[in-house]
């Protein structure tokens, strides 16, 4: 959709919704989501959870990192509060995303309840595309368009979750291993791609090093400590660099 001087308007909210769904299907995030959720489907199968459990978690949780943490810990007997802590720390990034998105969606007549669905839909894919597309859309069409696009992404993710689950069940072991490899690889590279500042790059590198180290040392709550130690170190380096330049 090209940026135009006059904002693009649709005849009805449902027309805007379907236009949004169409942008989701033709977006580059489609491939990334498909690959990620095929991997998560395979992971779900590997950890002995059901395909419907995954589909419901995709609709309810709608955050691939939190879902991976949940899948890999919930059946292994980890302490419930540790799982909740790891999930909630992985989800902190959603907070600034919602904060940045709301002013774009909110118009003069917007009610709070109109914003509930976009708030739940907020995730990396939808957020990047919303900030790119919505400014050129008429205000009254932005929320339905955003909802349509997000529903498109969510449906894609749910469908490819099933695909990955049943592929992992039926494929020879080597190929099933390849599917499980999709999750860390797509996470690694999409995180690296989003890491523009030194702070994010350092957080990524420190997490990659500290995470396995704490696992080898058999430290309790290893994910929480990985985040707190790696993240705080990265933050301190960032502060010192800012203070000296």
């Amino acid at each position, binding site marked *: 959709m090209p940026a135009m001087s006059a904002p693009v308007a649709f005849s009805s909210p449902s027309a805007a919704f379907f236009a949004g769904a169409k942008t989701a299907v033709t977006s580059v995030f489609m*491939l990334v989501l498909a*690959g990620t959720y095929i991997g998560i489907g395979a992971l779900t199968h*590997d*950890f002995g*959870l059901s395909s419907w459990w995954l589909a419901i978690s995709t609709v*309810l*949780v709608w*955050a691939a990192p939190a879902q991976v*943490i*949940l899948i890999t810990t*919930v059946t292994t007997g980890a302490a419930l*509060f540790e*799982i*909740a802590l790891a*999930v909630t720390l*992985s*989800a*902190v*990034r*959603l*907070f*600034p995303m*919602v*904060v940045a998105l709301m002013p774009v969606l909110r118009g003069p007549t917007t009610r*709070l309840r109109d914003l509930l669905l976009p*708030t*739940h839909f*907020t995730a990396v894919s939808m957020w990047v595309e919303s900030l790119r597309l919505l400014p050129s859309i008429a205000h009254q069409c932005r929320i339905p368009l955003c909802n349509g696009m997000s529903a498109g992404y969510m449906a894609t993710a749910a469908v490819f979750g099933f695909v990955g689950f049943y592929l992992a069940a039926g494929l020879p*072991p*080597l190929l*099933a291993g*390849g599917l*499980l*490899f999709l*999750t*860390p*690889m797509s996470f690694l*590279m*999409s995180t*690296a791609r989003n890491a523009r500042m030194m*702070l*994010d790059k*350092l*957080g*990524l590198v420190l*997490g*990659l090093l500290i*995470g*396995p180290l704490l*696992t080898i040392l058999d430290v309790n709550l*290893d994910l*929480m400590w990985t*985040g*707190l*130690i*790696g*993240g*705080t170190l*990265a933050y301190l380096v*960032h502060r010192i660099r800012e203070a000296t330049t």
Partner: protein
Amino acid sequence: MNPLLMELWPYFLMVLVGYLPNEVWRVFGLVLARGLNEDSQVVVWSRAVATAILAGVIAKLILFSTGALAAIPLSVRVIAAVLGFLVFLGARRSVFAGVLAGEIALLAGGFLFSH
């Protein structure tokens, strides 16, 4: 435990330790959207913590793999991840190219060296 309860237990856990601790940040964002901006120090620090946690999960999935991936030797997994990342950097940060290269390296290495 009652069989029906056993069946529903993973769903209950999903809501309790998955949905709720995840959703709370979205709701906070909606409620506090007028108060904080993206550059405030708490937000910057939380983003670094979140990135490090995600990186920890990534490293654990590659190094301490389970199931079918564990049958592929550790050295093959690490080399494939590094190769995939180098291709990602070389291909103007294309996630698709990087993942594809990593997968090809993993499958080739797994085919040659799996036991």
